[in-house]
């Protein structure tokens, strides 16, 4: 299982700013190791975010996203105490789901 995401959600006015730092290798499949063999691609393919259980964001990612990706987005209508859940699935089928409370 991958390392947990670090999620921060801060309410300001009628929206909340969510910042997510994911821990993932994001290997492109283009690099070669010291022996000259291609390193197999390994990257996050799908990202979803939910506000109190309702999906507010879905994204399809590819190998061009950098290692340990950072994602920031605003959620309209989110207020302090609300739950923000972020999920990702990578191309090996590995998953991760983490939750944060809006402050």
């Amino acid at each position, binding site marked *: 299982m991958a390392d947990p995401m*670090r999620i*921060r959600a801060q309410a300001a006015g009628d929206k909340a700013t969510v*910042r997510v*730092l994911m821990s993932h290798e994001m290997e492109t499949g283009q690099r070669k190791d010291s022996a000259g063999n291609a390193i197999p691609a390994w990257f996050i393919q799908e990202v979803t975010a939910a506000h109190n259980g309702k999906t507010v964001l879905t994204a399809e990612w590819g190998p061009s996203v*950098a*290692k*340990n990706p*950072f994602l920031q987005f605003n959620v309209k209508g989110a207020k302090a105490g609300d739950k923000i859940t972020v999920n990702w699935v990578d191309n090996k089928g590995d998953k991760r789901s983490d939750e944060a409370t809006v*402050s």
Partner: protein
Amino acid sequence: MTLRSLVLAVVVATTALAASAQDKVIYHIDNTASQAVKGLRNIRNHLDVDPTARITVVTHAEGVDFLMEGAKDANGGPFAGPVSALAARGVKFEICEITLRNRNLKKEQFIQEAEFTPSGVVRIAKLQLAGQAYIKP
């Protein structure tokens, strides 16, 4: 342990490690004003010359300040950029939780790359006894 034997222990430890693939190094920062810019530069150079090095930065006391959200150096340049660039290269930044209590700081005030350790000095001692090289910039 006398200073001399400590230095000797570190030298022995580093020589032993040089044989293995990865050098493991602790950078100790306890004063942002005098150490942070220099330390980050040292670490960047360290990784440029030896990209496989595993570096852990342990901060406590006034050394935690450069890991706070919105922290800037003496010339007004933000620390967040260089720190996250190094974090992306595998450098771990650890903050002493005793310092948080003493200075009344909250974990949310620090950048997301930062990690926490119950005590900075204990962490340094443990890593050093595990054979890691010690550098105080």
